[in-house]
């Protein structure tokens, strides 16, 4: 009964609506809607009606099609970039300064003595055109243990298909092949290679070929010295490196003097002790508000080239890098050299790229969503892609080789690789390093940061000090450093650096969303308006009409059901007359008419037949024209 009540109420509500049949409803909609097309369909002659019907249909489909395109465009999350260039007060970049050579040779000599003797003897043998008159007998007997862990071998590629491998210190072989060796050496078919075995004495060996002996020697020396130095505790290594007061002789920032105490020391595995100016870890970062060399950082460094480790680093100079505050300096990637005996001027332009994060581009804000454990976080530095890649490599190394590589920070509870504890580490490391798959895994798992800052440098060089000023400059600097009147500096060690902002010191590319929700709405509105003159209200109207037609359907169905019931009842009691109330309801409420088929045929029948107003048409219509006469 409740349902019936509700239905009756709904029906009454509907009666106030536009019509009782679909057609009526449609006509009403067309006449009253705010969209432009439908009105035309009903207003004009049959031909125009047809044309307008199709036009409206066409426009409606156009609108929907273009809406699809617009929504698609929105969902593709395009960005537009804006570029700004100019000068503003900016944070001066952090400047990391290292010596190309990691340790003072005078300090590490005891550790590397054996190694140096080995390589010298080996070179002697390799370079000797005739191996007879070697000076080996004079020198102390060599400790071949180090050698045997990772030996250097000569490969005779005379016969391409089966090369002969000669061990350099294998005296028997050289004695036997004495003559042939000299012959073939004259033909220059020998190549040096590093023999890497998974375990000492095992058969699982690879030979790393080198086209040049110089390369081979350097690689071999790096592998060996890495193994030796990795056993040395960190504080000892720091002591062996260059000290700030020895290296940084003079410092001037803008007009303010600074000294080595303004630099933060950091131990870098490649370059030993590095010193960072303006790192911003403990104190506020310095600002620079003027362009030009006068307002930048001026440094005088001494790299004391005489104290270089001969086989470890063949290039001499200072290594420096500009980077953001609180980021780790990856000197091998982004660092530049400054040559000794010159003044190097570096004009800086900060090239920033600010990107929108997800979903516009795949970048990370602080690296927390990257599935690689950042080992550089122990330095308190921010995330960077380089840190991620290196951490990724080190993690793989620990996983596969069981020890960490000396060049990268260690995860907890793992030791650095050395020849004694991990005899096969060099083999493991070089196979891992050469593995393309491993690199790809790291590239895929690391994400770049959303804010990418680069320092574009304009580098120029001049000889420094000039010949005329050389004497007094060296004198003063030596005096200041060592408090002695002897000149302890020379051209091969001294470097002057000027780092300053250029006239335009920033170039910022920032992204903004090309398609916002506002853009989408206005475009949708524009399309709808352009083709049909519609708005959201029109959509609501349309929805209303759909609800209305649903109601009509429901009513029709109910009416049909009722009619069916009544017909059945009538079939049972064919003569039962309808009650008065039934009749009244039938007249007042069209929806409850027993037969839905009859409903449209029913003329508006309030008892008396209506007068036929159509006759009015015969008379000349009103000058105002289109009026209809239903009353």
């Amino acid at each position, binding site marked *: 009964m409740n349902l019936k009540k509700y239905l009756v109420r709904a029906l009454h509500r509907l009666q106030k609506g536009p019509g009782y049949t679909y057609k009526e409803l449609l006509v009403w909609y067309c006449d009253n809607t705010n969209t432009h097309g439908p009105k035309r369909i009903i207003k004009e*002659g*049959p031909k125009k009606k047809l044309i307008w019907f199709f036009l409206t249909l066409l426009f409606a489909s156009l609108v929907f099609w273009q809406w699809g395109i617009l929504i698609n465009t929105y969902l593709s999350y395009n960005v537009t970039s804006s570029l700004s260039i100019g000068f503003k007060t900016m944070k001066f970049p952090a400047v990391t300064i290292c010596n190309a050579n990691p340790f003072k040779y005078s300090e590490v000599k005891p550790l590397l003595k054996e190694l140096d003797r080995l390589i010298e003897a080996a070179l002697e043998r390799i370079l000797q055109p005739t191996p007879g008159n070697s000076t080996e007998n004079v020198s102390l007997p060599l400790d071949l243990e180090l050698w045997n862990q990772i030996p250097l071998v000569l490969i005779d590629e005379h016969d391409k298909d089966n090369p002969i491998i000669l061990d350099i210190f294998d005296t028997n072989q050289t004695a036997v092949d004495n003559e042939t060796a000299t012959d073939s050496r004259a033909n220059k078919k020998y190549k040096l290679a590093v023999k890497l075995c998974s375990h000492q004495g095992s058969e699982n060996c690879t030979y790393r070929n080198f086209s040049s*002996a110089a390369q081979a020697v350097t690689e071999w020396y790096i592998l060996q010295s890495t193994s030796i130095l990795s056993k040395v505790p960190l504080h000892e290594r720091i002591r062996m490196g260059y000290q700030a007061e020895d290296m940084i002789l003079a410092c001037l920032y803008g007009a303010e003097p600074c000294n080595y105490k303004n630099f933060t020391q950091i131990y870098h595995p490649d370059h030993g002790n590095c010193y960072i100016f303006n790192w911003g870890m403990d104190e506020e970062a310095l600002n620079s508000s003027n362009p030009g060399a006068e307002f930048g950082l001026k440094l005088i460094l001494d790299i004391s080239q005489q104290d*270089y480790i001969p086989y470890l680093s063949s290039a001499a100079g200072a290594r420096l890098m500009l980077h953001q505050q609180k980021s780790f300096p990856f000197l091998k990637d982004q660092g530049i050299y400054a040559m000794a005996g010159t003044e190097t001027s570096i004009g800086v332009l900060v090239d920033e790229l600010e990107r929108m994060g997800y979903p516009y581009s795949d970048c990370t804000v602080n690296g927390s969503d990257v599935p690689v454990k950042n080992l550089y976080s122990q330095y308190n530095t921010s995330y960077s892609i380089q840190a991620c890649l290196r951490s990724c490599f080190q993690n793989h190394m620990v996983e596969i080789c069981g020890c960490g590589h000396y060049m990268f920070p260690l995860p907890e509870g793992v030791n650095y690789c050395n020849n004694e504890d991990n005899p096969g580490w060099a083999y493991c490391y070089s196979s891992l390093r050469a593995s393309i798959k491993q690199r790809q895994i790291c590239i895929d798992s690391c994400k770049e940061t959303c804010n990418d800052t680069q320092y574009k440098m304009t580098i120029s060089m001049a000889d420094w000090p000039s010949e005329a000023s050389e004497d007094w400059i060296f004198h003063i600097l030596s005096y200041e450093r060592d408090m002695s009147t002897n000149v302890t500096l020379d051209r091969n060690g001294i470097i002057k650096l000027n780092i300053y902002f250029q006239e335009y010191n920033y170039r910022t590319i920032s992204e903004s969303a090309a398609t916002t929700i506002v853009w989408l709405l206005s475009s949708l509105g524009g399309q709808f308006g352009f083709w049909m003159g519609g708005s959201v209200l029109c959509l609501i109207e349309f929805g209303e009409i759909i609800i209305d037609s649903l109601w009509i359907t429901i009513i029709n169905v109910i009416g049909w059901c009722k009619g069916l019931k009544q017909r059945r009842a009538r079939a049972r009691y064919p003569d039962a007359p309808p009650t008065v109330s039934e009749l009244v309801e039938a007249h007042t409420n069209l929806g409850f008419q027993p037969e839905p088929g009859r409903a449209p045929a029913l003329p508006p029948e309030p008892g008396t037949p209506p007068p036929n107003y159509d006759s009015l048409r015969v008379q000349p219509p009103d000058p105002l024209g289109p009026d209809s006469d239903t009353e």
Partner: protein
Amino acid sequence: AATAPGKKITARLKRTLPVRGPQAPTLSELMRWYCLNTNTHGCRRIVVSRGRLRRLLWIVLTLSAVGLILWQCAELLMNYYSASVSVTVQFQKLPFPAVTICNINPYKYSAMKDYLYELDKETKKALETFYGFSEGKSKVRRSVEDWNSTGSDFFEQIPLLKVEDFSRTATELHSGQKRKIEGSVFHKDSSIVNSGDSNDIIGFQLCDANNSSECALYTFSSGVNAIQEWYKLHYMNIMAQIPLEIKEKLSYSAEDLLLTCFFDGLSCDKRHFTRFHHPLHGNCYTFNSGESGTILSTSTGGSEYGLQVVLYIDEADYNPFLVTSTGAKIMVHDQNEYPFIEDIGTEIETAAATSIGMHFTQSRKLSKPYSDCTETGADIPVENLYNKSYSLQICLHSCFQKAMVESCGCAQYAQPLPAGAEYCNYKRNPNWMYCYYRLHEKFVKEQLGCQQICKDACSFKEWALTTSIAQWPSVVSEDWMLRVLSWDKGQKLNKKLNKTDLANLMVFYKDLNERFISENPANTLVILLSNFGGQLGLWMSCSVVCVIEIVEVFFIDSLSIVLRRQWQRAKKWWSGRQQGRAAQATASDVERQGHENPACIDEDLPTFTTALRLPLPQDSPLPRTPPPNYSTLRLETAFTEQLPDTLELGQH
């Protein structure tokens, strides 16, 4: 019989879709009807407003809205072809670029001795005569002897001259005779006017061989430039006559140039390099040229993982007049790009390690109609002489070479040969130098039209380089390094290497971020239409439907009304002429016509019954009973409001 169905159909069509003119009888009626019924907002106000001022106001407002729409839409249309720039950064494995390395000195001087003997002798002589410079006493004596014995071709062809500025006379070096300068004087170096008491200027004169009065004198402010330029002219002339195979042999081989090579942590050798003969730099070697089909790529940044080579620069074997600097030239470029190493190469110092960090940027412009660039170069009417993909530089060089072949009859030495042409030399083209200089001058002044024809390429790859230099080898490692490198070089080199003969080069990616700068169309058709819709809707609530209405009403309907009236008038005039008496009857025609017009009695007006297509209550439409006069009702209620009333009436 065949036409009967067709006729039937047309008749039926005519019946169901009758052709009718506009409902309104006159133009003003039509306008009124339009204004009342249109969907745009302003018009209705004009008609509905009462009072002249208000009406005028609405007319002005509507017109200004129309004007605004037109203006804004024109603006939108004009800005349609604008592009927006997007920058994407992608971190990925990057293809390593091709690295072309040349020795600055093109050919081994010792090997070139045979070809250049005469020229060098002449040059030395010139140096001695003009500047009193001699390399040593023994040589001077010899050259003095030579002076007398052999006639000098070079000075006869293009003499070096000492010009006295005021008198405009020149002293010829060889003969010592003075002569008056004819023709124009070109200062090759600078346009700075020499001070009056300056020294004599050195230059050379180029004459048209066919017409000796046509001469051009090229002067230089410094003898260094004059001698070098003069030497280069003759040098090119000599080199043009040597076939390519011999030239390749005269230049450095890969073993000569490359001592060590290391890429991505692995050793590499000369097989990774492709030889490429550059006319001005001799044999150059391109690493990773992609000729073997594979292009190497880097998946780790940093100096260890890039290319590291040690170059052997044999300083002692340098040509003293052609090149005055020592070192190598390198260029980083795409595999498909031709290395214009003489234009944009980077020079590398000896006895130093040059570390070059790269940063990769790829740019793409939109081609026509957004900007005037070319995608492949196929639409440029200049034949690409280089076997590489199009670039602006290639186009300019090819264009110049084409002009050169056309006007001088031979090709310039520094650029590739077009089909069927050959390089210029004195024996065949005695006139070429004059011609070349003239043409080059035209080219520089943009008179050849090359700069107009050539367009820049739409997409290009750029490697931004950060170059820094360190001392190499370091003082302490110098000893063993040189020994080992000498051993590498092999036994045929007996002397120990000197560090000024060596250059160390490192080329690596600073990071694997690829910046991709691309232009995208800022507008698509969809967005343009949306913007139109926005404008139309904002000012007048108009849509395409309104536009159609406007076309319908203002063009079709108005025209047909005008035509109809003309027709009526003509008809009236005709009938008036035919029967003058019936003039009165036709006079009312015009007025009656609108209402009498069947179109005006619109049975399609949506009355309740007609809209629903309900059957008329009575079949016979004519009145049986006189209807009550309900006309009064019409004045009070509009039709649309009437409909629900009708329904309610119907129910009760």
